C-alpha cells in the first residue's frame, strides 16, 4: 500500500514528465514539416531573431495549428472523462456517440445557409461556429440519450444507438455537402476529416475561453464525478441529486466536445482512450484523472499531428485518421473485456 505522501510525489512527477514531453513534442512539431526548421532556429524565431520567412512559417502557419491541437486534445480528453464517469460506461466517447457528427452537421448547415453572408475564414464565423456546433452537439446527445433509454441506459445499447445516430447524421452531412459549391465543399471535407492545419489564430481564440473556463469547472465538479461513479444508489444515499448532477455534467461534456469539433473537426476515439490511460496511472479519483487526462490528451493529439505530418511526407494525413488508427485496437480490447 502506497503512503499518501508517496502518492502525491508520484502524481506530481507524472505531471512534470507529461509537461516535459509536451514541450518536446511542441518543438518537434514546430521544426518539422514541408520546410524543416532546426530546433535552434525555432527557438531563435520565437525570441524574434529568425528570418522573416521563418517567422511567417512558425507564427502564422505552424503555431496556431499546434496550439489548437493542444487545446482540442485536452478538451476531448476531459469530455471523455466526464462521459465515461457519468454513464459509468468504459466505451463512451464523444466521437463514437455521435456527438461530434451532430456538431459537424450543425456547422455544415451553418456554412451551407450562411455561406453568402459570412466568409468561412472570417473571424466572426470562427466565433459563431462553436455556438452552432454546441447546438448540434446538444441535439445529438439528447437524441442519443432518449433513444437509448429503456428502463435505464445500458452501456452497449448507448453505444449502439450512438453508432446509428452517427450514421444518420453522416448521411445527412454528405447530402448537404454535395449541395454546396465546390469551394465550400472542399473546406467542409477537409474540416470534417479532423484537420487542424488550416487553423489560424481566430480559431485558437474562439476555442480558448471554452477550454480555459470549462476544464477548471470540470475539475471543480470532480467530486460529483467520484460520487456518481459509485453508482446511482450510493450517490443518492450520499445526498447527491443524481439526475440533476448527471444532466449538468453531460451538458458540460457536450459543450466541451462541441467547441472542440467546431475548431478542429471530428476527432473520434481520443476521448475514449485517454481517460483509461489516466485511470491506469493515477487511480479512480477524478481530482487527479482530470488534470492528467488534460495533459495526456494534449500530448496525444500533438504527437498524432506530428506523425500525420511526417510519416508519409509530403502527403499529410489528417490528425483524426491517425488517432483512429492508433486507438481502434484499444477500443477492440476494451470491447472484449466489457460484459
Amino acid at each position, binding site marked *: 500500500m502506497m503512503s499518501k505522501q508517496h502518492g502525491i510525489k508520484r502524481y506530481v512527477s507524472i505531471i512534470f514528465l507529461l509537461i516535459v514531453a509536451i514541450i518536446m513534442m511542441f518543438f518537434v512539431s514546430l521544426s518539422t514539416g514541408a520546410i524543416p526548421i532546426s530546433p535552434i532556429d525555432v527557438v531563435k524565431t520565437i525570441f524574434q531573431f529568425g528570418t522573416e520567412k521563418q517567422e511567417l512559417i512558425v507564427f502564422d502557419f505552424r503555431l496556431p495549428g499546434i496550439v489548437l491541437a493542444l487545446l482540442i486534445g485536452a478538451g476531448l480528453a476531459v469530455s471523455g472523462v466526464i462521459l465515461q464517469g457519468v454513464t459509468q460506461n468504459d466505451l463512451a466517447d464523444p466521437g463514437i456517440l455521435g456527438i461530434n457528427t451532430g456538431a459537424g452537421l450543425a456547422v455544415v448547415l451553418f456554412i451551407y445557409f450562411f455561406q453568402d453572408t459570412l466568409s468561412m475564414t472570417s473571424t466572426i464565423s470562427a466565433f459563431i461556429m462553436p455556438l452552432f456546433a454546441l447546438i448540434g452537439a446538444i441535439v445529438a446527445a439528447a437524441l442519443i440519450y432518449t433513444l437509448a433509454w*429503456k428502463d435505464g441506459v445500458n452501456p452497449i445499447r448507448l453505444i449502439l444507438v450512438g453508432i446509428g445516430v452517427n450514421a444518420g447524421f453522416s448521411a445527412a452531412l454528405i447530402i448537404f455537402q454535395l449541395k454546396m459549391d465546390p469551394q465550400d465543399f472542399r473546406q467542409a471535407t477537409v474540416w470534417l476529416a479532423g484537420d487542424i492545419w488550416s487553423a489560424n489564430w481566430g480559431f485558437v481564440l474562439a476555442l480558448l475561453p471554452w477550454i480555459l473556463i470549462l476544464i477548471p469547472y470540470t475539475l471543480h465538479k470532480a467530486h460529483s464525478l467520484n460520487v456518481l461513479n459509485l453508482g446511482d444508489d450510493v450517490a443518492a444515499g450520499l445526498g447527491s441529486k443524481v439526475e440533476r448532477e448527471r444532466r449538468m455534467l453531460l451538458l458540460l461534456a457536450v459543450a466541451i466536445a462541441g467547441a472542440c469539433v467546431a475548431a478542429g473537426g471530428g476527432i473520434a476515439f481520443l476521448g475514449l482512450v485517454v481517460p483509461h490511460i489516466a485511470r491506469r496511472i493515477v487511480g479512480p479519483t477524478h481530482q487527479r484523472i482530470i488534470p492528467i487526462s488534460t495533459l495526456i490528451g494534449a500530448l496525444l493529439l500533438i504527437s498524432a499531428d506530428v506523425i500525420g505530418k511526417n510519416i508519409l511526407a509530403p502527403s499529410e494525413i489528417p490528425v483524426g485518421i491517425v488517432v483512429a488508427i492508433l486507438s*481502434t485496437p484499444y477500443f477492440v480490447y476494451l470491447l472484449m473485456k466489457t460484459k
Partner: protein
Amino acid sequence: MISYINHSRILKLLINGIAIIALLFSIALSVSYGAVEIKLSTVWQAIVSFDPDLSTHQVIQELRLPRAFAAALVGAFLAVSGAIMQGMTRNPLASPSIMGVTDGAAFTLVIMLAFFPGVSNLGLTFASFVGAGIAVVLVFMVGSFSTSGLTPAKLALAGVAIGTMLSSISSVISLHFQLEKDMSFWFAGGLSGTNWTSVYILLITGGAGMLLALIISRSITVLSLGEDVSTGLGQNNLLIKALGIITVLILTGAAVSIAGTVGFVGLIIPHITRFIMGTDYRWIVPSSALLGALLLVLSDVVARLVNAPFETPVGAITSLIGVPFFLYLARGSGGGK
C-alpha cells in the same frame, strides 16, 4: 394475417410476383429518368431495335441500362448476404456494412489501386473478396476472444471498430497516392461509373454466390433454429457455416467492388422479408434478393433526384432509410439486456 402468409404457398408466390413487377417498373423508371428524360416507348425501342445513330439510344444502351441492372444486382447481393449472415449467426444486427465487411473490401481495393494501378476489373473484384474475408475473420476473432461471449451488440460494435480502423488506413493510403478523389465518392457508395463490364462481373461472380446461397438455404433455416437443433438433425454445422461465410464473401465482395460501401441494405431487407415470408430461408433468400434489388434501384433514382443535376452517393440515401430501422433494432432484441 402474417401466419396465414406463412402457410400459403400461393400467397408467397403472389407476393414475389408483385415484387418482380415492381422491380421491372422501378428499372424502367431508373432508365427513363435522368439528366435527359426519355420516354418509356423510346426505352423499349432502344432495347428491341437499337439504332446506334440516335443519341438517346446510346444513352440508354451504354449508361442507363447497365446502371439500373448493376443497382438491382448489388442490392440483391447485399440483401442476400445480410440474410445469410443473420440466419447463420442468429444476430439481428448482422449485415455486411455493420460488420465491417464492406470496409474490408474497400481496404484491399485501395491497396490494389495504389500499388498495382494497372489491375483489371476482375482483379479488383477478387481483391475485394479477400478484403471482405479479412474483415470477417477479424470481427469474429474479436467476438470469440470476448469475455462474455458473442452477443449481437458486441459483434456489431466489433464490426464498427474493425471497419473504422480499416477505412482509416484506406484513407491514409488514398491520401498518399492521391486517390482520394476516386475514393471519396466510392466510399459513400455510388453507381455512376457502372457499365456493361460491371454488370458482367456482377453476374458471373455474384451469380455463383447466389447459387450457393440457394443451395445452403435449407440448412441455414435449420441452423437459424439453433446449433443444438441443427446438430440434432444431423447437420454438419461447421461445413454449413463455412459455406455460408464463403457465400457472404462472394456476394459482398462482388457488390462492393462495383458500387462501393452501400450501407444498411443488408440489414433492413432480411428483416422485412422474414416479416412477410416467415422463417424458411428457401423463401427468404430469393425474396430478399428481389426486395434488395427494388430498394437499391429506387434509392439510386432518389440519389439522382435529390440534388439534380448532381448525384448524391446512393449509400447516403440507404443510410437515411436504414438508420431509423437500425435504431429500432438496437433498442430491441439487439441491444443487450
